[in-house]
């Protein structure tokens, strides 16, 4: 087994996949705790569908750097969803459902109408489930990913206490002069960026699993915000790296394998949580 692995790791694309996978897992798990606790889990899901629609547009337009198209559109959608969450006219969950299904349909439609590729359903499948995308990363992709993950982690470290305050009690935070609106916006923008990043690893249908599962697993066991954040980061990184290993060894799709590892971790954490409660 080790020989197979060391053979694989002599290929740069496997190393790239590993670096990118771990970084994405780290940044998405940090964010996930806040999103889950704020009851925003579905925003991640909605945004990933928007990202799929944007990716379809980028493919059809044949843009060289698709992130340049996908990122701004997803960020815009994030800001819009957050705004409607606050105004009561169009209820938050309805808006999310509407946008995500709409974007999915629109993306699939234009891919079918305008794509020059011979294998449209293969393209769609890999965008949705991220089957091979992570193994075809270029050096530029890897650097973009490293840069953005570092940025996400830095933002998180700098604003950790504010993010805690805004997540736990928005009204109190606002009353003591914290600009909660601005921090919500920051969270939305960072979420959008992480989703665009993570699309390469898990594909747009599976991303929200990377965001919510580590946080939920950590919350089964740990009882303080800091412990939950740290545990969620560790769980996410362990699941992502072991998932990537497994997928290489068993030649399974990367995204789905990582998500399954996360599900296993969740089940395990649930068990540990129950045992801890009994003692």
């Amino acid at each position, binding site marked *: 087994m080790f020989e197979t692995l060391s053979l694989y790791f002599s290929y740069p694309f496997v190393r790239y996949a590993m670096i990118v996978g771990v970084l994405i897992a780290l940044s998405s798990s940090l964010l996930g705790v806040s999103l889950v*606790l*704020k*009851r925003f889990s579905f925003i991640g899901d909605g945004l990933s569908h928007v990202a799929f629609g944007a990716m379809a547009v980028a493919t059809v337009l044949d843009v060289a750097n698709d992130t340049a198209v996908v990122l701004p559109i997803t960020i815009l959608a994030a800001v819009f969803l957050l705004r409607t969450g606050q105004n009561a006219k169009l209820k938050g969950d309805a808006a999310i459902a509407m946008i995500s299904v709409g974007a999915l349909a629109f993306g699939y439609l234009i891919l079918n109408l305008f794509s020059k590729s011979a294998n449209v359903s293969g393209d769609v499948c890999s965008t949705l489930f991220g089957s091979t995308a992570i193994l075809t990363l270029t050096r530029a992709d890897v650097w973009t990913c490293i840069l953005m993950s570092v940025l996400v982690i830095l933002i998180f*470290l*700098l*604003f*950790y*206490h*504010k993010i*805690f*305050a805004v997540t*736990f*009690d928005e*009204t*109190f*935070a*606002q*009353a*003591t*002069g*914290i600009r909660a609106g601005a921090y919500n916006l920051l969270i939305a923008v960072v979420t959008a960026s992480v989703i665009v990043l993570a699309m390469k690893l898990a594909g747009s249908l599976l991303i929200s699993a990377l965001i919510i599962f580590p946080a939920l697993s950590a*919350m089964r066991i*740990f*009882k*303080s*915000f*800091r*412990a*939950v954040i740290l545990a969620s980061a560790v769980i996410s990184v362990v699941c992502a790296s072991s998932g990537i290993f497994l997928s290489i060894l068993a030649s399974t799709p990367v995204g789905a394998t990582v998500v399954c590892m996360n599900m296993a971790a969740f089940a395990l954490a649930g068990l540990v949580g129950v045992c801890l409660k009994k003692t």
Partner: protein
Amino acid sequence: MAQILCENLELGYEGRAVVRDLNFEVNRGDYLCVVGENGSGKSTLIKTLLGLKKPMGGEIRFGDGLEPDEIGYLPQQTIVQRDFPASVREIVLSGCLNRTGFRPFYTREEKKKAEDSLERLGIRMLEKRCYRELSGGQQQRVLLARALCATRSMLLLDEPAAGLDPDAMQEMYSILEELNRKEKITVIMVSHDIPAAAAYATHILHVGEEPLFFGSKEDYVRSGTGKKYLSGPGGETHV
């Protein structure tokens, strides 16, 4: 000068006024109870005092060394908080955030302040416990400790007794009374339980019903509105 002075305040939402011509002042050491029916504009008044909402008319002035972001606020509990994984210490510390500005960490002074306010409320031993595993009364104390971190001189409480059992409720009221009498912390409390809330107050503000009432508790007891709301089913007063 008064800590808070409200002149001809007009409050409401979506362009519809709920309260008009609201005039009152709060001085250091006062214990003001804001009472009124549900929907009478109590919550709107709180939001306006905290600066989360602009008044539709009139003016609020802060004085006597009170900054608008230095009011220690005790909000009603939200659903999110019931299963929130946070230690008591983390929550109480977050009350110090209004002093940190762009600094991403807490100083030793701020940590000391958090410990002090835990001590003052007698919950130092809960410091490491998880918030969601505490009883309702303990949770309220934690939030009160957080509010004390955010302020030097004024607490604003939104239905602090809601959802508490009678014992915990009584305890909450006596903690507030002690903070008010011993440490001269101004208390503004919103409540719809008029008799219980009024028992400890020095001043009463009754909103919703015309005419509005603002004055000392003694005057309130003698006024028409006061008589109507304070008399129990048997006709005797609770104060």
